[in-house]
């Protein structure tokens, strides 16, 4: 029965080596929770779909050197702007490079950008927002006004300025995009923190002697975690796009590097006559972002202890 499927079962003891056993005993609870989370995720169709997409993208990125039919930066002026055919499934670009190969290699760069940006911006933004919301008063005002200043710039313009100031390179572009994304996380987490800090368990924690930073770390942040994950999946797509725009104007990934956004930006010029150029990288961005989004959504539901069983 479906209801019984949700019951936890204790994993069968298998003796491998004493060190592993020790580890398993010490973290028995965490292991049980993890197995249970995985089981719940497996019963959730959208989680499975999102997970499959993400895994497919990651696998494609990892195995690009093995699977790509061509060298992604190999010029072949004879084959300029070929439409999709048996030799080039996704066609070729204006320098005769195989778009399929470039898309496969591009997955490495775009996924890396997205993940790193979300980790940096989400981590810093959540901490800043939680501290700001919990401490309130002057600290809150100061932090939030700084965040407002950052938000008042169009994200692309600010990222451009930062990337230009840091010097054109992919890593600097990542830092610039992460910086621009911090306020989005900070504002959301601050809002959540304001709601969470009025709840009674915060007073109860204070009554049992918890300090301010302890409360932020142990009570405020974990309660905001599920929304950070969801926002993270949304930002991931946006980060890939902004980073792509930076690449387009020469501040991100440098020219021969295959990068989805940069490919779209260049392919835009050819969209009328050579539709395949911008369409395939765009399709991959779309599918990747959707994959992260639906997986993030499902993850939020599964991690929320009030919904999970």
């Amino acid at each position, binding site marked *: 029965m479906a209801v019984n499927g949700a019951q936890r079962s204790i994993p069968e003891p298998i003796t491998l080596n004493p060190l592993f056993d020790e580890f398993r005993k010490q973290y028995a609870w965490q292991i049980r929770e993890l197995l249970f989370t995985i089981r719940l995720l497996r019963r959730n169709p959208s989680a499975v779909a999102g997970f499959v997409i993400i895994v497919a993208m990651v696998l494609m990125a990892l195995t690009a050197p093995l699977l790509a039919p061509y060298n992604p930066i190999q010029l072949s002026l004879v084959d300029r702007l070929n439409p999709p055919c048996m030799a080039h499934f996704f066609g070729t670009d204006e320098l005769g490079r195989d778009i399929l190969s470039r898309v496969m290699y591009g997955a490495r760069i775009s996924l890396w950008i997205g993940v790193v940006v979300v980790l940096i911006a989400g981590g810093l933004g959540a901490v800043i927002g939680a501290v700001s919301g919990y401490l309130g008063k002057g600290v809150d005002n100061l932090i939030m006004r700084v965040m407002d200043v950052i938000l008042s710039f169009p994200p692309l313009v600010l990222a451009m300025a930062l990337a230009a100031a840091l010097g054109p390179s992919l890593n600097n572009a990542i830092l610039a995009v992460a910086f621009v994304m911090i306020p989005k996380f900070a504002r959301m987490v601050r809002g959540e923190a304001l709601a969470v800090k009025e709840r009674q*368990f915060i007073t109860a*924690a204070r009554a049992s002697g*918890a300090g301010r930073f302890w409360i932020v770390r142990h009570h405020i942040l*974990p309660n905001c975690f599920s929304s950070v994950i969801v926002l993270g999946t949304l930002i991931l797509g946006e980060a890939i796009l902004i980073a792509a725009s930076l690449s387009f104007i020469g501040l991100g990934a440098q020219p021969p590097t295959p990068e989805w956004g940069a490919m779209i930006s260049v392919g835009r010029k050819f969209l009328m006559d050579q539709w395949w150029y911008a369409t395939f990288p765009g399709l991959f961005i779309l599918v990747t972002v959707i994959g992260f989004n639906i997986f993030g959504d499902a993850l939020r539901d599964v991690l929320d*202890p009030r919904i999970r069983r």
Partner: protein
Amino acid sequence: MGATLLEIKDLAVQFFTYQGTVRALEGVSLTVQQGEILGLVGETGCGKSVLARCVLRLIADPPGKITAGEIRFKGRDLLKLGRREIRQIRGNEISMIFQEPMSSLNPVFTVGNQMMEVVILHQRVGRDEARRICVDMLRQVKMPDPEQVLAKYPHELSGGMRQRAMIAMELACRPDLLLADEPTTALDVTVQAQVLSILEELTRQSGAAVLFISHDLGVIAQLCDRVAVMYAGHIAEIAPVAELFASPLHPYTSGLLQAIPRIDEGKAALKVIPGAVPGLIDPPRGCRFHPRCGQRLAPCDREVPAFLEPAPGHCVACHLYASGGRG
């Protein structure tokens, strides 16, 4: 009874709101002896919870502010302690149980996680030792299957179990004083009795004093050694529990006792105290009870009555017992 553990002197608390200054507590004095259970009764909004929160300095500032008085705990004035020092006392020497067991636990962590957190924080023990202490405490509050309970999330427990878990958590560090802010109000009657008997047993056993806040006189009568009656931010009367119920001195206390429905008196109408609880932004001058009092005297609307002790251990703030009054 033992020595004085907690002494509150002339405490005044005000809340600064847009509607005006709420004078939530004024001239409140009381003492808690070591190992005793002191009941604190009063209507909703009379300042009981504010008083308890003041002891741990938990009132929100702004809008609240302790404007006068001192709170001496083991001889130290809690109001003068630094942030770090008060944190050492919270949860360790004084702990507090709240009214809503539903919302006093963090929903995203398991019960065990939260209990152990408090123990580790104060007793500087390892995780294994903390776990052992928690299991032991849960066993003492008669929780079935303590190991299992530790691995559960708060929403998986019933209200009574959560409140027992809270009691276990708050007593785990062996505090000298427990502030219980209506701990059983949200529970149904049978569970309430169970939780109360556990609370009494454990605190008597460990010698912890309890400041037990309630608006339920039945609970107070059953549990407490002494009772303090509060009305509109003032203490009206303090007496040993039997004496208070047998011979209440303050007109408010007797009004309160007459307003309890009794099963043996048929369907006679209850005696109600006329009028309503005054707002505390602009409270009545003098004795705050005088507009509703049936035995009003001349000075009642002018002078705040002094705290008198007409019988040993029985204090009352009422002009009726001043030397010039009904003597």
